[in-house]
């Protein structure tokens, strides 16, 4: 077993001890918000020009997005515990590479998001979700969601290693909210005033949402898929490079 696999297994054990935070936190608030919001604002689909069959179909990618970002920081907080308890000091005595240790932790965030997103997709399917993309489309959406969750958690890893402050790490959790508000989460572009539309156009959440909508509609928009994947790779590359450098400095102290 590699160091990354060992860290993944260790994180999975910690998650089994605390399943509410590990798996309930990304799932339950996302489902509640998605369900209540579509119930309240279902009338949006009656606005002339609404592009999909139902508002449920419109909000579903938003609910999947929430499963990637709500409750973020679980594994970063566990990493912080490793630093506080001296586990990291013991790991320093082994030849394990810091990059693989962080990769083992971070990849578990992808799994958390996949579990939550799979449940959300399954519930949506029983409620009549339009998924013209079929199984392949669903898998692509899950992969995109897992990628977004992993990349997003890079911010939390960097914060955990540099601040070593649990409150500072968990304080980042609402960071997604303003970015989500000014995207296409709530409604299509034709509802937006021009300033809002400009903000949404350059918002990475919009790229993820529009890519997901296009996959589920059976007409993949490769432009949105490409830019969404590029953003995920860019964010993950930046935050994890910074995290690994900070971790190396910490280990050298």
């Amino acid at each position, binding site marked *: 077993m590699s160091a990354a696999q060992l860290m993944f297994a260790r994180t999975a054990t910690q998650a089994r001890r605390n399943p509410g935070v590990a798996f309930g936190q990304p799932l339950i*608030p996302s489902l509640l918000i998605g369900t209540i919001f579509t119930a*309240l*604002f279902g*009338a949006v689909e009656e606005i002339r020009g609404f592009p999909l069959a139902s508002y449920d179909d419109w909000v579903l990618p938003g609910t999947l997005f929430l499963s990637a970002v709500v409750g973020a920081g679980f594994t970063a907080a566990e990493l912080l515990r490793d630093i506080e308890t001296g586990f990291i000091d013991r790991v320093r005595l082994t030849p394990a590479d810091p990059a693989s240790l962080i990769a083992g932790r971070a990849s578990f965030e992808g799994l958390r998001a996949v579990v939550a997103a799979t449940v959300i997709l399954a519930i949506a399917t029983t409620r009549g979700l339009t998924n013209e993309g079929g199984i392949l489309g669903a898998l692509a959406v899950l992969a995109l969601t897992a990628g977004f969750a992993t990349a997003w958690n890079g911010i939390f890893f960097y914060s955990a290693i540099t601040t070593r402050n649990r409150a500072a790490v968990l304080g980042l959790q609402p960071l997604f909210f303003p970015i989500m508000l000014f995207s296409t989460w709530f409604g299509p572009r034709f509802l937006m005033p021009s300033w*809002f539309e400009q903000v949404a156009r350059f918002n990475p959440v919009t790229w993820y949402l529009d890519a997901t909508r296009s996959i589920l509609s059976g007409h993949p928009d490769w432009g949105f898929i490409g830019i969404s994947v590029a953003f995920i790779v860019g964010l993950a590359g930046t935050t994890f490079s910074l995290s690994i450098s900070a971790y190396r400095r910490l280990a050298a102290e």
Partner: protein
Amino acid sequence: MNALTAATGPSSAVFARSVREGLRDPGPALFLPALPPLLLVIAMTSLFGRLNGVIAFPTGSFKEFFVPGAIMIVAIAGGGFTSAQVAEDLRSGFIDRLRLQVRGPLILLLGRFGFEAIRIIPGVAAVLCVGLLFGGALPNGLPGALVITLLAMLLSAAYAGLFYIAAIVTEDPQTPLNLNPVGIIVSFLSTAFIPRAAMPSWADTAAGLNPVTVIVDGARAAMIGDLTSATVAAALAVATAGVAISVVASGAVLNRKLSRG
């Protein structure tokens, strides 16, 4: 006079301590509660103007309907800020020391409740001003603004009781903060966003049972309806009753906790 001072002294001391703590960390105490409703006002009034054609808003437009709801959300977002300090005071023995000065432990919480009521005033003012810029209306002028502020203050104090009970029972500063998602459900399943007539039946039933609905309806009437209406009076009565229930319930829980040592 001495009796009055003896009764209010510890509460004032706790209130002053809360104010000092709030000013030391003004972000979460004073400004954070305003941020979600502020962003919601900007985003939703910009996006959902066209809902007027498909939902019959009693106010005539979504914007006028939503702004009073958003102001009430200030009282709920970031709820129970001081509950972490209540847990810390229990842990550190600060409350035990204050007990030596007062007969009823309830007095120890009154100062905290008072601060919960006033700390949202800057947020209410900010959301009101931005709401007016983004299409809200305030034909009732300053009296309407004062009543809506009073309702938000009462709602903030009433809602804080839930966090205090969690803080007292657990003595853990983190636990009450985990209750924050309750605020999302309580806000959504009220008339803060859309009228009950436009809700599906299960949401309508939930909104009917939710006391926040009465308070939001009163805030809306205070802002753009009849300031002397029964709706405003009902909202003030429900909010005041909510504060009374919160104070008595959290006082009882604290009393039990302290009597068990």
